[in-house]
């Protein structure tokens, strides 16, 4: 619950991640507004699990997320495009070995 005594006029934005029953990871499914973290969780349950989408929800306040920016895109991501040797496809994996 909030520890401030002054009522805030707006609800912050939260990003919602849901993991499906068979999924391995939480997938970003959208965003919503809520007054606090617990309310964000119940809102996410009401908005993003209506069609039996999943069994686990993560909510994060959007301003707590650090994201890469558009102007940094070239130095961040282009250098990996010409380094195919980093991809682990140069040896054979037998069919009965699970994900590595």
């Amino acid at each position: 619950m909030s520890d401030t005594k002054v009522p805030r006029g707006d609800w912050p934005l939260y990003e919602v991640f849901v993991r499906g029953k068979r999924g391995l990871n939480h997938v970003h499914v959208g965003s919503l507004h809520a007054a606090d973290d617990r309310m964000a969780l119940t809102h996410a349950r009401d908005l993003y699990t209506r069609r039996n989408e999943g069994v686990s929800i993560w909510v994060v306040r959007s301003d707590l997320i650090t994201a890469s920016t558009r102007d940094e895109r070239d130095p961040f991501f282009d250098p990996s495009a010409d380094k195919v040797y980093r991809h682990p496809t140069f040896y054979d994996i037998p069919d009965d070995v699970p994900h590595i």
Partner: protein
Amino acid sequence: MSDDHVYLSLAQGQDAGADGGEGDARWAFGTGFEDPLHGVDTAVPAGLDTAELAARCLALADDALVSAQRLAEWTTRAPELEEEVALANIGLDLLGQARLLYARCGQVDGTGRGEDAYAYFRDAADFRNVRLAELPRGDFAFTIVRLLVLSGWRLAEFQRLTDSPDPVLAAVAAKGTRELTYHRQYAAEWAVRLGDGTEESHRRMRAALDAVAPYLEELFAACDVREEVTAVLAQVTEAAGLTMPAGAALPGAGRDGTHTAHLAPLLAELQSVARAHPEAAW
């Protein structure tokens, strides 16, 4: 998260079969839907008091239908978009329970009527819902207090009904307890936020409790779950910085067909289209 164990999830995916691996790409399409009456024998068990069963199903269905209608009145008027979807979801859960209960009532009371006959073609005097459900929508605080009381009371009754000798009623009750647990939790969290909020929200919550209190006795007369429900209400009101008002109970009971003046207009609106076109197929 501790349950994100990769190998466990993989094992589940492999056991499940062909569509186990596509999780990410198809997140929007839920899987594993199950009919709530799947595997339930719908034959009426011998030796059961069918009149009592039918009356019980009808009353519970009427409670749900009227409550759902009042919750639906928040559509386009809720304070926030997320609350609108939440209240609509709660109403739809109740409507689903009403449908199953009306259908069971039709099978058991000998008339063979369908759900629509009960919902759309009965008059106010034939309804058996508790009067608290039919009171006007009110403000958000009133809606939350009413939801807290009705969902807590209904949950307590449904928990007992999971042992019902009628398999369909037991199945509906089992499904319903999960839905009602969430409804009660939603209402409780909002009650605490509003009670322990600003002066305005606190004032409205006190007014809502005063408005709801006279109708409590009727609920316990319909199903004696007084201790559980008052314990939950005490817990929530204490956390919210409120007190349950003691007050005189209003005489009369919806279970006997005695209703306030609010039920007839509610039904007039609910039933208007169906009654205007009684032969229509949806």
